[in-house]
C-alpha cells in the first residue's frame, strides 16, 4: 500500500478486485446518502435557528415551505429504502434460505466476536495486541448499520407524528408531539454528528483510507484492501474455495470517476454541515 498512493482506498494494493456489495446494496446506499443529506440540510436550520448561518441556509433552501417539502420528500425516500431493505433481507432469509444473514460470519447481528474485537481494538490502540481481523462486517460497520436501523425507526416514527399531528391526535394526547420533537431533533443530531464525523472517519478519513473509499459505490475493492479490512472473510472464502466466484473486473473508468465524484461531494457536504453544527453548538 505504501508504494501505491491511489486516491481511492479501495483501489490501492495488489490483487484482483473482489466484489463486496451488490448493485442493489450500492443503490440503497446512494439513496441513503441523498435522502440523509437532504434531511439534515433542511432540518439543521430549524434545530439551530439561533445560529448566525441559519436564516441564510433556510433562504438558500427556498424558505421553510420548500425546505419542508424537501424534508418530506427525503423522508419518503428514507421510508422507501428502509422498506426495500427489509423486503430484500426477508426475501433472502425466508425464501432463499440465507439463514447465515441472521447468524454466522456474514451476519449483521452483533456477536461475541464483535465484543472481543472491540476489546482487542483498544488493546491495539495501546500497543498491547495486534489489530483485530474482521469478518464481512466489522463491529464499527455493524454499529453503523444498526444506528441507521434504529435511527430510521425512531426519527421516522416521530417524524410521522409531526407530519400528521391531527391524525395522531385522534388517539394520542398532544404532548406526544413534544416528545416527538425532542426525540426527532436529538436523534437526528446524533445521526448527523455520528455520520459526519465517526462514519466519515472510519470509512474515509482515517489514515489507512484517506481521503476516500469508493467500495460502497463501485461495490468492489482490491484483494489487498479486502485482506486488510476483512481478512477473516477472505480467508474463509479461500478456505471454502469460493473466493474465485467473488473476483470481479475493475470498475469502468466512468463508474470509478463517478464514484469518486459522488464520494467527495457527499463527504464535502457532510463536512460543511457538521461545521455548521459545531459552529452553532460552540456558540450556544
Amino acid at each position, binding site marked *: 500500500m505504501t508504494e501505491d498512493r491511489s486516491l481511492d482506498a479501495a483501489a490501492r494494493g495488489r490483487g484482483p478486485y473482489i466484489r463486496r456489495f451488490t448493485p442493489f446494496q450500492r443503490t440503497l446506499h446512494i439513496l441513503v446518502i441523498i435522502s440523509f443529506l437532504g434531511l439534515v440540510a433542511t432540518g439543521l436550520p430549524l434545530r439551530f435557528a439561533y445560529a448566525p448561518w441559519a436564516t441564510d441556509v433556510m433562504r438558500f433552501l427556498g424558505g421553510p415551505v420548500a425546505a419542508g417539502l424537501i424534508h418530506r420528500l427525503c423522508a419518503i425516500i428514507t421510508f422507501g429504502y428502509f422498506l426495500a431493505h427489509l423486503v430484500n433481507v426477508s426475501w433472502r432469509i425466508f425464501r432463499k434460505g440465507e439463514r447465515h444473514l441472521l447468524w454466522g460470519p456474514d451476519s449483521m447481528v452483533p456477536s461475541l466476536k464483535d465484543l472481543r474485537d472491540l476489546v482487542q481494538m483498544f488493546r491495539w490502540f495501546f500497543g498491547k495486541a495486534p489489530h483485530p481481523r474482521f469478518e464481512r462486517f466489522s463491529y464499527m460497520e455493524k454499529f453503523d448499520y444498526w444506528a441507521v436501523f434504529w435511527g430510521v425507526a425512531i426519527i421516522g416514527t416521530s417524524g410521522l407524528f409531526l407530519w400528521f*399531528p*391531527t391524525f395522531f*391526535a*385522534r388517539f394520542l*394526547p398532544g404532548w406526544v408531539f*413534544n416528545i416527538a420533537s425532542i426525540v426527532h431533533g*436529538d436523534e437526528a443530531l446524533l445521526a448527523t454528528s455520528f455520520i459526519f464525523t465517526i462514519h466519515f472517519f472510519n470509512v474515509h478519513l482515517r*489514515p489507512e483510507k484517506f481521503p476516500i473509499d469508493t467500495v460502497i459505490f463501485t461495490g468492489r475493492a482490491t484483494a489487498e484492501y479486502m485482506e486488510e479490512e476483512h481478512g477473516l472473510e477472505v480467508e474463509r472464502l479461500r478456505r471454502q474455495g469460493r473466493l474465485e466466484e467473488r473476483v470481479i473486473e475493475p470498475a469502468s473508468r466512468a463508474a470509478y470517476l463517478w464514484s469518486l465524484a459522488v464520494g467527495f461531494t457527499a463527504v464535502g457536504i457532510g463536512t460543511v454541515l457538521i461545521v455548521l453544527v459545531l459552529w452553532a453548538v460552540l456558540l450556544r
Partner: protein
Amino acid sequence: MRSLTRSLSLAAALALAGLLSAGAAAAQAPGSGAGVVQCAKCHADRDFLAANTTRPGQDTALFVPPDALHGSAHDTLACTDCHRGFEAGFPHRASRMVVPCETCHEQEGKDYDASIHARNAAREGDAPTCVGCHGSHAVLGPDDPDSPTYPLNVAGLCGRCHGDPAIIGRYFNGPGAEQARIAARAFPKSVHGIALTRDGLVVSATCSDCHRAHLVLPADSPRSSVNRANIPETCGSCHAGVERVFEASAHGRDYPEQPGVAEGHDKPVCVDCHTSHQIVRADQPAWQVSTVARCGSCHEKLYETYFDTYHGQVTRLGFDLTAKCSDCHTAHDMRPATDPKSSVFAANLVSTCGQCHERANANFVKYYAHGDPTERTQYPRLYWPWLFMTFLLAAVMTFFVIHSVLWMVRVAINRGRRVGGDHETGSRGPEDREGGR
C-alpha cells in the same frame, strides 16, 4: 317751510349717520375700511418704506400687502385689533405692543403657555410661538389646505425644527430620546405617515394628534399626551375599539395584577409593541415576526421555550409561517390561561389552535406550546425522554470520538516507528496495522 326744515334736518341726520357708520366700518373691516387704508398708505407702499426707513431690511419687514388678511381666519379684524397703540398716526414709534393671541384664543394660549415650546421659547428663544406655526397675517384655519396646520402639512411644519440636526442635538441628545431623534425621518414611512402623504388621508394621525397642537409636553411629564399612562387614551382617541379591548386585557389598566408574571416590568402600552414613529401595518410579515421579540423582552421564559418548538424555530429564522405570540394569545386581548375569557383557556384551545390546525381536537391541544423538557417537576413527560436522548447522544459521541482519536494516535506511532527504521516482524499487513509488543 316747516316741511323743508324737517327735510333738511332729516337729510343731515342721514348724512351724519352715514358718515358715522362708514367710519365705524372703516375702523373694523380691513380690506375696505379706512383703518387698513390708513395703515396701507405707508405699509403697502414699498417706495415710501424704502424712503423712510434707515436700517437695511427694515422696509421689507414692515411691508404688509393690503390684502394680507384677505381670506384668512382674521379677515374681519383690523390692523389695530392686534397692533395696538398705533392709532396716533404717522410717524409712530416701533413697538412690541402686539395684543396676545390668547386674548381671543384663550384655551390655546393656556395650553401653549404650559407647553415645552413656551418654556424653551422663553429660555432659549428658538422654540416656536403662535406665529412660528400659524404665520402672522395670513393665518389660516386647520381646515384650509393651504394652512401649515392642515393635517397633511403638520408633519412638514413640525419637521422644520424636529428634522433639524441642530435642534435635535440640543434638545434630544439624552438616552431614551431615540424616538424623538428619528421622528421626522421615520414618521413619513410609518403607517400614519404613508396614510397622510401617499393616501392623502386627513384622518390619519399626524404629530399634533398624538402630541397635541398646543400642550406639547415631553413624555416624562405626567400631563403629556404621550406619557406612558396616557398613551392608551391618546391612541384610543382614534383606535377606540382597540383601547376598550386593551384596557380590559391582562396588559390593560382594568385587569387585576397577576402575581409572578413578567416581574420587574411595567405593563406594556401601545408604543411598546408598535413603536411611536415607526408604526407599520400590523399585518406586515416582517413586523409580525419582529413583534415576538417585543413580547419576549418581558416574557423571557415563554420566549425561550417558544423557540424550542417548530413555531418558534421558523419565526426565529425570520419567516412568517408559523404561529407567533399574537396568533395564539391575540394581539390586544391577551389574558392568562386561567381566565375563561382567554384565547388560551383550556376550553378555548380547540378553536384557537384550530385557526391553523384544522381538525384539531381535545387531544391535540394537550400539546405544550411552551414545554420545557429540563423542568422535571413541571414536565416529567418531556424530562425523561429528553434526558435519555441527551445521555445517548453524549455517550455515543464520547465513546466514538475517543475510539477515533486513539486510532489516529496508534497509526501515528506505528508510522513514526517505521520511519525510524524499526521494522516490525511477524505482524500481519502493512505498518499501520501493526500491533504493539
